[in-house]
């Protein structure tokens, strides 16, 4: 079975600085997808960024980028120029066709952005 681990329950960053959230996963599959979701307080989870395992190039979405290390099974999220609105719970998630497209989530990392 696939597992996703986020070892940082909480992180904080100063506004305008850069922060990296860690995620590791375990799978025996070769074709899969990885996601970062953001959940602001009392709001729905929103997809931040996704990465296809077969792509070597790291995904980027504006201030958000990932460092995907397939051999190490690591998928970290880098947030550049942090803004107050980035404060949220961030979930790393895994999905594959073989596992029926269900999302397997990590524990979540609570990000605080300090003004």
């Amino acid at each position, binding site marked *: 079975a696939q597992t996703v681990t986020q070892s940082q329950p909480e992180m904080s960053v100063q506004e305008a600085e850069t922060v990296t959230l860690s995620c590791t996963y375990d799978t025996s599959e070769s074709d899969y997808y990885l996601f970062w979701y953001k959940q602001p307080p*009392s709001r*729905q*989870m929103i997809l931040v960024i996704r990465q296809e395992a077969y792509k070597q190039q790291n995904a980027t979405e504006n201030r958000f980028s990932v460092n995907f290390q397939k051999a190490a099974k690591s998928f970290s999220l880098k947030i550049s120029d942090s803004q107050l609105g980035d404060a949220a719970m961030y979930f790393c998630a895994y*999905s594959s066709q073989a596992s*029926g*497209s*269900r*999302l397997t*989530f*990590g524990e979540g990392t609570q990000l605080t952005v300090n003004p």
Partner: protein
Amino acid sequence: EPEVTQTPSHQVTQMGQEVILRCVPISNHLYFYWYRQILGQKVEFLVSFYNNEISEKSEIFDDQFSVERPDGSNFTLKIRSTKLEDSAMYFCASSEGSYSNQPQHFGDGTRLSIL
């Protein structure tokens, strides 16, 4: 931007009672999901639904649970005889397709409290 909506936001129910959680997926989406998050634990997959049938279910989704799409818009999760351990946040999600790279769009969740 279209959203997944869930009602109610908070449901309090006596143990042993039946509860129905409601979701309105995004209108052109065809695949629907329920996840739950027990306080302090990971978000867990419960069930996926397509073409009026369950596509996949987890070991959590036992005979006490059922899902239904009673009309063209609603997607419901019913728990027949609630237990204390059913207390959790329940998230509904929908996606356009079933491929694992298709992003799942989440609702705000329903907090279910069993007394």
